């Protein structure tokens, strides 16, 4: 791994590579050396050593209370987050929960987010041709009857009459026959289909049944994925100047979308961490938690929160191989110590249950020890130092 894209001498490379610096910092050293022409090997060595010393100094010490530091580092800027839920995010007029409500939702590992959404990337010609991209859209966006034509009720004959719009049908690649069949399957009625008109009615003439049928008809998904109510196409510029079509959705069905032809299953993402977990596993879920919390904070101008804090949160949430929420029902609620749990929420219940089951508290954690007034096992509290007697 000694090949670099920087224009520096081999000696400099050797000196820098010899340090304990991570790749990112080594690259920055190279860049600095490169920018200032005529840096000697000795000077480069000095720079590299200085950077290394600083790097080693700023690393977390053993027994540092990282969790507490993270909690404070996320909590303080968190006070500046917006409390109103709805706001159009810059992307494609799709409504996305932001600010504090979104952060809470993520940390609570809510089963479905308030505003589920997917960013669907396309492959090959689907990404470059508008028609092809539209083909994918129709496979994803849920098509209801009102999008296909007009529905009217003929009260005199007790019939529901649908006049389909043939242009829309052609565009969405569905035939009147298919529509009629789907209606029959879902409502259990006999339909009469003639050209673009479909008629049906209740078995027994009944005004209530007729209205009921219309209600049910509106809920049928004729094409696409039921959960996805809207899809927006956007043309986006790539790094290399090329353009591609990207789809943004309201509603999500990540697993279904991945297997649709034309969808790039390597970049498509969604904002529901549980769907990511189910389809891509814990590691991807961890990544998404970091990404989403980071974006939520960045959106509000709080991107100076160090990503390490968010990584710690994500690590803890995925530690047991599945997503756990932070809070009573998740991490804090499953702590070993009775006192720690009691100190968090619903104190009396925890103490009562512990008493009934005869639980024992080993006083290993922080909270318990604060409660009983012992030194906590963090920082200097965990180090035993005794004066040694030197034998002569």
């Amino acid at each position, binding site marked *: 791994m000694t090949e670099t894209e920087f224009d520096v001498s081999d000696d400099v490379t050797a000196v820098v590579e010899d340090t304990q610096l*991570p*790749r*990112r910092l080594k690259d920055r050293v190279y860049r600095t050396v490169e920018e200032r022409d005529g840096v000697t090997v000795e000077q480069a060595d000095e720079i590299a050593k200085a950077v290394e010393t600083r790097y080693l100094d700023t690393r977390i010490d053993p027994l540092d209370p990282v969790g507490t530091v993270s909690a404070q580092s996320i909590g303080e800027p968190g006070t500046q987050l917006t409390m109103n839920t709805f706001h159009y995010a810059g992307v494609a007029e799709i409504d996305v929960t932001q600010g504090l409500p979104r952060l809470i939702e993520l940390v609570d590992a809510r089963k479905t987010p308030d505003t589920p959404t997917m960013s669907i990337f396309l492959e090959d010609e689907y990404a470059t041709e508008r028609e092809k991209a539209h083909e994918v859209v129709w496979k994803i966006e849920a098509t209801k009857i009102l999008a296909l034509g007009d529905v009217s009720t003929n009260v005199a004959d007790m019939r529901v009459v649908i006049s389909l719009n043939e242009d829309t049908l052609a565009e969405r690649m569905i035939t009147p026959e298919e529509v009629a069949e789907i209606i029959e399957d879902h409502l259990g009625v006999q339909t009469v289909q003639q050209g673009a008109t479909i008629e049906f009615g209740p078995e027994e003439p009944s005004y209530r049944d007729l209205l009921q049928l219309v209600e049910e008809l509106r809920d049928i998904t004729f094409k696409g994925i039921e959960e996805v109510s809207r899809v927006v196409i956007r043309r986006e510029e790539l790094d290399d100047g090329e353009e591609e079509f990207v789809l943004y959705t309201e509603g999500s069905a990540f697993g279904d979308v*991945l*297997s649709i032809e034309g969808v790039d*299953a*390597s*970049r498509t*993402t969604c904002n529901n961490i549980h769907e*990511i977990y*189910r*389809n*891509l*596993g*814990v*590691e*991807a879920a961890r*990544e*998404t938690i*970091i990404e989403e919390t980071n974006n939520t904070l960045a959106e509000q101008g709080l991107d100076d929160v160090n*990503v*390490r804090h968010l*990584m710690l949160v994500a*690590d803890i949430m*995925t*530690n*047991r*191989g*599945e997503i756990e929420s932070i809070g009573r029902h998740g991490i804090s609620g499953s702590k070993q110590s009775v006192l720690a749990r009691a100190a968090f929420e619903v104190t009396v219940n925890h103490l009562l249950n512990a008493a009934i089951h005869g639980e024992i508290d080993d006083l290993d954690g922080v909270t318990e020890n604060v409660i009983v007034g012992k030194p906590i096992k963090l920082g200097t509290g965990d180090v035993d130092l005794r004066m040694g007697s030197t034998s002569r």
Partner: protein
Amino acid sequence: MVDVSQHELVPEHTVLDEEVLEGVLSEYDIDRTDLPKIKRTDPALPDEAEIGDVIKIVRNSRTTDQAVVYRLVVD
């Protein structure tokens, strides 16, 4: 089914050999049960992984170049 390992969010998962594992555990001075876990049903898990195996995961890290982490396969 879609090949999950191709997704950019999914890092490389490989089953770790027992001998290498010993080295890792002694380096950190921990038992294998102290490692973070991964479910046996996890979609990103290699097919040959079984309960009790340790998976080596190489992430593209935000803070360093690459980060190597280990997860124990559990039920």
